[in-house]
């Protein structure tokens, strides 16, 4: 519909554009605006409060649904790689138990990326759903190159929480399990080996070496549950070998008298994680115990 006046196009450059037409509507009288102002202010205040309270409630910090989730290596079976029984390469099945003490289901979803070198290679991808309060055991296939100097590590497991969060959880006891596997293999892959023994008075000197040249720290030494004094510990051992100087206990321990004279030393070592190496010392150790420690004991 065209108005009573002919349309006029007026070009004004650049801006603002002129507006032609009827006079702009006048604002309502001041008295009318002030009449709505309290209601408007009240509505605004109420809105501020309601939206603030809602935001306060909704933005509660994220919880920790996977708090207390534990992954631990609880079992291991191993065998020599086919056709390589004399090589320090082992194939193992590790049983990993994932315990979820929380209130939400979590999911194990493979391994986390790691740039750390490890003697454990050829891993498969574990997956499992663990309901609240439950334990699930998964089995992973691992190839272990026991002769490598790299520590025997398992990558962390990725645990996915119910709210989508992801967390990396290490498998506790993996180092000890992998070291046990290597210890059951041929000598070049064992964590520690005995390279010699001799007596120095009442002291038994046991030479030990780490054939793989893996960084190995000896923390303590026991024999049939009895802690032995081995001089200054911790002691770092590498391929060249070190000497453990065992001083005799003051008396013949009851455990040795009743249960047997030790032929092995239980050496607690640390290679990026704690483990126990059972060192077969044999006759030099039993002779030392019978001649020195339990001398005169029937």
């Amino acid at each position, binding site marked *: 519909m*065209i*108005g009573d006046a002919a*349309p*006029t196009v007026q*070009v*004004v*450059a*650049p801006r603002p*554009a*002129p*507006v*032609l*037409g*009827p006079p702009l*509507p006048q604002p309502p009288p001041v008295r009318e605006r002030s009449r709505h102002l309290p209601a*408007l202010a009240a*509505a*605004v205040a109420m*809105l*501020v409060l*309601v*939206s*603030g309270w809602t*935001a*306060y409630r909704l*933005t509660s*910090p994220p919880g920790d649904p996977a708090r207390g989730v*534990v992954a*631990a290596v*609880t*079992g291991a079976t191993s065998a020599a790689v086919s056709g390589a029984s004399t090589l320090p390469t082992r194939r193992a099945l590790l049983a990993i*138990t994932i315990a979820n*003490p929380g209130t939400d289901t979590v999911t194990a979803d493979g391994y986390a990326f790691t740039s750390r070198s490890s003697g454990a290679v050829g891993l498969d991808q574990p997956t499992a759903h663990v309901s609240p309060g439950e334990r699930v055991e998964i089995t992973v296939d691992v190839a272990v190159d026991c002769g490598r100097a790299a520590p025997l590590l398992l990558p962390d497991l990725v645990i996915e929480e119910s709210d989508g969060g992801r967390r990396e*959880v*290490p498998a*506790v*006891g993996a*180092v*000890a399990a992998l070291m046990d596997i290597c210890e059951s293999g041929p000598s070049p892959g064992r964590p520690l080996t005995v390279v010699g023994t001799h007596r120095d008075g009442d002291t038994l000197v046991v030479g030990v070496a780490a054939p793989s040249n893996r960084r190995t720290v000896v923390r303590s030494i026991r024999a*049939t*549950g009895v802690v032995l004094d081995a001089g200054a510990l911790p002691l770092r051992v590498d391929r060249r070998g070190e000497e453990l100087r065992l001083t005799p206990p003051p008396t013949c*321990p*009851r*455990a*040795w*008298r*009743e*249960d*047997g*004279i*030790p*032929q092995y030393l*239980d050496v607690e070592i640390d290679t990026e994680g*704690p483990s126990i190496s059972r060192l077969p010392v*044999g006759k030099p150790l*039993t*002779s030392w*115990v*019978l001649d020195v420690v339990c001398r005169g004991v*029937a």
Partner: protein
Amino acid sequence: MTPPIVDPTRRGAELDLDAPASTVPRQRWRGPAIAMVAALLVGAGGGATLRTLTADPPPPVLPQVELGFVEAHLDGDTVATLGVTVHNAGRTPVTVASFEADGVHPGHLSQPLHVTVPSGGTSTMRVTVTADCRKSIDASPLAAEVRMTDGTTATAVPSRQLASAGGLCRQVRGALPDGWWDPWPGVKVEVTEAKLILTLPPLGDGANLSGVWAGKTILTYQERPELVGDRYPPITLLPPDVCLPEPRLPTGLRILVAGTPSGLLDRYVVVGPTLARWLLRYC
């Protein structure tokens, strides 16, 4: 009525002759609408900010704990050593105050540790316990946890060997010499030169000797022992011709007695280092 005029130099501008000229109602509510939106944004922002400022810090990461069997031996009683491995993935060191367990022996076991595990570190603690495994296989399940100095607790996941009911006693029995649960105090053992002479107390009606073991190795008789009444004359045993490939050189003998009212009896005699010296002499 004059139609609205817009800047025709703008791209896509056109003259809409049908558009109403007046916008009075919209302009009237523009202010309150803006105020409402602003109130919404201010309120939401304020609430979220307040929540962030007043929120408690997130709970610290709980340490991961694994429980394993290390060894067992006779020490007047049956003593087992357990290994408690604690990994601390948190940002601050944690101090393990104590180890708590049920199912090791009757009642609750609480053993103080007081070991600090550094951030990102793993430590293994040895816990020596007296395991009550003499009567029979104890089928009570093992439940263990560690308690931190701040009062929090972390469940210890037992190894597969320990997890099943009676697992601890199975491990203990496997590690100890056979017959340990039935000691035979009346047996006399003498070592003379190369021979070991065994004198047994009366066996009772119908009972007879089935064999004598040192560790897992059966010992041979110099002469086949013959019963005289209900007892044997002193029995002479010969040493094994190989070194015993066992973790411990035996200091006790396992004696198997058959034909008793209870059937086959597996008994243990503590001899002491004398037996080990006798066994070692021929290694």
